[in-house]
């Protein structure tokens, strides 16, 4: 079928770019190998590890090869504005702000900064020293209330851990995060948990629970548990599958499809077929024979090494898995890592990725554009150590938004300004 744009990758960058294109009226197909980054991550938006994230973004953007140098504060602001609208419309408003980070507890009781985060996590703000009751269930693995509480206490946040009794349910054996998410959508289950929280509360001024408080209507669940327990309740992100990450995915994927976008999950892009400086077609793996797809433009958002967009092998070769684009990476395998694991400058291998022009077109080692009709977004881009910088989601949102804007041309710039709450330019 004839598409204007094919987006490859269903992480934050691909979904953001695809959404912007579809909402601008483009016919968009989004291909992805499966669920990944959203389902593995905390569901918070990290922009940069710094007291003032936007100032850090400006500093990173001064590095000529950094993705923030291609898509900076205006794109980030516009993408975040649209994401906030969508989350608010889904009754799942995001809290926080781009100009300051909030430190929130993790499932091991560490404090992790995020610029934006679900309102369901807001009461966990480490700036407050109000005593915390950390509650969990023995049946829920990988979340140990006393461990979280002990580590928080050691960092000056008074906390106490407690196990709740699992209310009577049809389920008896161990279950993943999403099963708990569904249980919390049951009123009787919530009432039982609420009663236990009130009884266990003691002098705690807020209560932490693992982030499984409803797949769909978490805002309402958290409010109800606050009423029942008598103090504010907040979520702590869990190991995967991450319910807050899934909520974010669902909100974006549904908005994308509402706008007319087509989503094809479970289809690996194996290769591209070029003609000069144009990518003519791409092929996905399928039963018995590959499926051929064509579009005028392509947005590559397949992620880095963790997301599967880049693959390395024991010889030190690094390949871009979908289109076989040239990868900017250390020449020798011995140059991948700094001598020390926690080296402050990070490891060179994590900056590997696809070199991109100012308009996010993929470049070869000579700095020449490989395909004029391809733009690249997210962790697939070279030049950033996203985990080290705390910029994973920020770069995904900014470059995804920008990559779509590059394909929309001038019309895109107008929407960009409107979405950012700025007056559209006069014509």
């Amino acid at each position, binding site marked *: *079928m004839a598409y204007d744009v094919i987006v490859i990758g269903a992480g934050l960058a691909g979904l953001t770019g695809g959404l912007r294109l579809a909402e601008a009226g483009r016919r968009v*197909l989004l291909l992805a*190998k*499966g*669920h*990944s980054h959203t*389902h*593995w991550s905390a569901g918070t938006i990290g922009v940069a590890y710094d007291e003032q994230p936007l100032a850090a973004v400006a500093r990173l953007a001064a590095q000529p090869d950094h993705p923030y140098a291609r898509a900076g504060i205006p794109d980030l602001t516009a993408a975040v504005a649209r994401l906030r609208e969508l989350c608010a419309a889904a009754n799942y408003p995001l809290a926080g702000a781009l100009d300051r980070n909030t430190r929130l507890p993790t499932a091991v009781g560490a404090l992790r900064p995020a610029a934006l985060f679900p309102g369901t996590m807001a009461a966990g703000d480490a700036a407050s020293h109000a005593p915390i009751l950390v509650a969990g269930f023995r049946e829920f693995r990988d979340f140990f209330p006393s461990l979280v509480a002990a580590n928080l206490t050691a960092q000056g946040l008074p906390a106490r851990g407690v196990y709740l009794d699992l209310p009577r349910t*049809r*389920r*008896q*054996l*161990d*279950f*993943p*995060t*999403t*099963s708990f998410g*569904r249980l919390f959508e049951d009123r009787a289950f919530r009432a039982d948990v609420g009663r236990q929280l009130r009884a266990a509360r003691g002098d705690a001024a807020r209560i932490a629970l693992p982030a499984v408080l409803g797949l769909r209507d978490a805002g309402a669940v958290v409010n109800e548990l606050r009423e029942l327990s008598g103090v504010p309740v907040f979520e702590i992100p869990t190991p*995967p*599958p991450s319910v807050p990450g*899934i909520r974010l995915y669902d909100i974006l994927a549904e908005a994308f499809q509402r706008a007319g976008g*087509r989503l*094809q*999950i*479970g*289809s*690996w892009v194996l290769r591209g077929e070029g003609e000069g400086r144009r990518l003519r077609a791409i092929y*996905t*793996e*399928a*039963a*018995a*024979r590959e*499926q051929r797809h*064509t579009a005028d433009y392509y947005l590559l958002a397949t992620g880095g090494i963790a997301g*599967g967009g880049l693959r390395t092998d024991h010889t030190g070769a690094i390949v871009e898995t979908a289109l076989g684009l040239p990868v900017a990476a250390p020449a020798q395998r011995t140059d991948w890592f700094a001598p020390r694991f926690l080296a402050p400058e990070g490891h060179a291998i994590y900056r590997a990725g696809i070199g991109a022009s100012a308009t996010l077109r993929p470049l070869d080692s000579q700095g020449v554009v490989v395909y004029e009709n391809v733009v690249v977004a997210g962790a697939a881009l070279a030049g950033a150590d996203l985990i080290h910088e705390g910029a994973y989601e920020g770069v995904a949102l900014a470059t995804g938004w920008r990559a779509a804007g590059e394909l929309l041309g001038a019309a895109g710039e107008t929407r960009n300004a409107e979405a950012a709450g700025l007056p559209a330019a006069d014509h």
Partner: protein
Amino acid sequence: MSKQPEQLDRSLNLTLDYCIKCNVCTSACPVARVTDLFPGPKYVGPQAQRFRQPGQESPDHSVDYCSGCRVCNMVCPTGVRIAELNARARAQIVAAHGLPLRNRLLGRSEVMGILGTPVAPLANWTLHTPVLRWAIEKTVRVHRKAPLPSFAGHTFRGWFRKRGARPQAKKVVYFHGCSTNYYEPHVGEAAVEVLEHNGFEVLLAPQNCCGLPLLSNGEFRAARRYHRNNLRKLLPYVRQGYAIVGTSTSCTLTLKEEAPELLGLHSDDVRLLAENTYDIFEFLRDLHERGELRTDFGRIEQTLPYHPPCQLRAHRIGHPARDVLELVPGLRL
């Protein structure tokens, strides 16, 4: 395709090594969602698979609850062939412990069709009368409320033979499958009309059940027989350059991939049949992409529900039915 058969066979099992234990499959699994009896694709698939060795008792019989819907394969970010691992594990259990009569009967939709069609009124009455269903539940163990299809009373093949072929230069083979032949001949009648409208003569090649019900129940030996028979019957047509087009995504998936992969059949003949088998909407979409589909559609002002079949998911070709039907003016899905 340069891989040797034994490599292909191994590669399916080796996909379990790609499992990073992220549990994305379990969170998407519709069976694990509703019952404790199924601990989820990750546990019964890549995890338990490490303990399934030839000649040893399978450690995990809960794999039998896998419905084969392949949502796990679809969402897996690292490409583990979970549903296929599960199907093979079930076959290992069946080989060791046998199969209840119920599964033997339900797996043979073709035999049921041959027996039921001539006596359709009686058979339908039997299958839809509560007291008899109660008796069936007690003897064969099929729940009395489980919906069973009704025999149409005539077969698609009979209808086609009576109507006669309509010769045209371009030809395709229609793979009707058991369901269309015995229960819903109107599906096949519609498919023939659409294909003929697009300039194809429809050939009614000899064929038998694709064997999917047997594969689903773990009766791999019987399924292998069915696939060999279909190969023998269909290959002469494929060799003449005719595509095999089916309306059942289950049958076409079996010919394309399920039978070859699960049964470890990787000869050139098997591959030739697989590569020339198409879901009908996939076939029509390909025609459209080449500009060869007749798009003289009448207007249909309607909004219709569309439930994609489970096995379509495993074709990994998106939603061709939606792509084609949205070409019909006025129609919304």
